[in-house]
């Protein structure tokens, strides 16, 4: 079972994403605090990270860059997401594997998740 870590400061989104991804057959952990990203990665060892761009006090793009420049974590695919207009254009240089704008179509999100994990859609 593939493991997904979701990082977003909106706890409502985290709750519903946890339900959705669990229902889709993934093992899921979530955090609303940017500073918890690295400890969570170390303990949970996710196969994919869904990372918000603005995380109340932390810039998701900076977290992504740090992840991608660390040998231990650089292999983990990162899909960034944001409701901020123009966020897509600003993430390119931070090394994210993909981006999806909020509010997203769930089927589209699942396509991107499966593509990063090399899975065939259910």
């Amino acid at each position: 079972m593939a493991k997904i870590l979701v990082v977003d400061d909106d706890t409502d989104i985290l709750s519903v994403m946890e339900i959705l991804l669990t229902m889709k057959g993934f093992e899921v952990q979530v955090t609303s605090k940017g500073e918890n990203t690295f400890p969570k990665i170390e303990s949970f060892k996710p196969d994919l990270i869904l990372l918000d761009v603005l995380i109340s006090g932390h810039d998701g793009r900076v977290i992504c860059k740090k992840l991608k420049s660390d040998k231990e974590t650089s292999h983990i695919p990162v899909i960034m997401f944001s409701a901020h207009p123009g966020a897509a254009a600003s993430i390119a240089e931070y090394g994210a594997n993909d981006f999806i704008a909020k509010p997203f179509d769930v089927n589209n999100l699942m396509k991107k998740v499966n593509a990063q994990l090399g899975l065939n859609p259910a």
Partner: protein
Amino acid sequence: MGDFGFFNFLLTMIKLLEKQKKLTSRKQNSNFPVEDQFKLVADYAPMPMWISNIYDQTTFFNAAWLQFRGRSFEDEYGKGWMKGIYPDDLDKCVKIYEAAHQKQKRYKVEYRLQRYDGQYRWVLENGIPQFTPDNIFIGFFGSCVEIHEIKEIEHRKDQFIIAASHELKTPLTSLNIYLHLLSGNFKSGSQEKFDNYISGAIGQVNKINGLINHLLDLSRIQSGSLDFECSVFSFGALVKSIVKKMGIIIPSHKIILNGKVSEKIKGDPERISQAIENLLSNAAKYSKDQDKIIVELSEDSKHVKVSVTDFGIGIDSDHLFKIFERFYKIPGKKEETFPGMGIGLYLSQQIAKKHGGKISVESEKDKETKFTLKIPVYKKAVKHK
């Protein structure tokens, strides 16, 4: 007379001087050249002004220009003044100047110009081509009007639209997922799951409704049509009920209530709750790494007070007095990662003022932040015998 009024006055002066120039050129008897007369007038103008020649070299700056720039005429002469243009605006300015010179046509350009204190200020520059009586192009006359405040408001409004769309899209994201889950649950799902998804979806709809109401309140308070349903009530009891309610909404923080008040106030309890709830939401939002918020009640003979203290990121003193302004969001790498539309404190302060009260703030960057709402106590009118 405002800056624009003065600008029109100067244009009229120039036209008059040009007429005079034609006359004096015919008579050839002027002992005080028209350009010197213009320079004399320009030196009294409150706005920065200049004259350039056909080689686009600036050969005159009025007193207001030199004062604004805090540099000498020699420093500014020719193209020296262009060192004051904000680097990002330079290319745009050069292109406009070159085109205007080539076509010998009027132009307008907005750019940031460095002031005597090092600050870059937005200015609107008007350039008008000048010709001899024989219609030979001799350069440009120009003036600058400072539009910094207007540009700042424009920028804040743009940022507000971005922030508002971000705020509205966030609950829409959750709502969308709940609807997706519900559509899947119709076929094979339990009643409990169904109820959970429905309640989740309704929660997000309420969130969107709350945001829209905030936007409407902003518009209503601007037009003076925000409704207040006033009654006399216990301030202490109201604050206690808010603390209880917000304790459920903000489970991440323990809200500690200290002190008490016995005086009543007259006002709209819904609106006062809105202001206090906003202070509590902000306290939680900007102290994500902390787990407590202190609410303190106090009173004197004239006022009741409630203060909300958090132990979060704090507010730099440069921004303390701006945070109650409409659309103001504290700039900064860390600050800009927090959600919000930049209207909550503005609305709260307006609500306080409508009740004859005020919200004040004490904070420093990376230190605790304390907001205090002060409302006058209700005094029964004393009937004289």
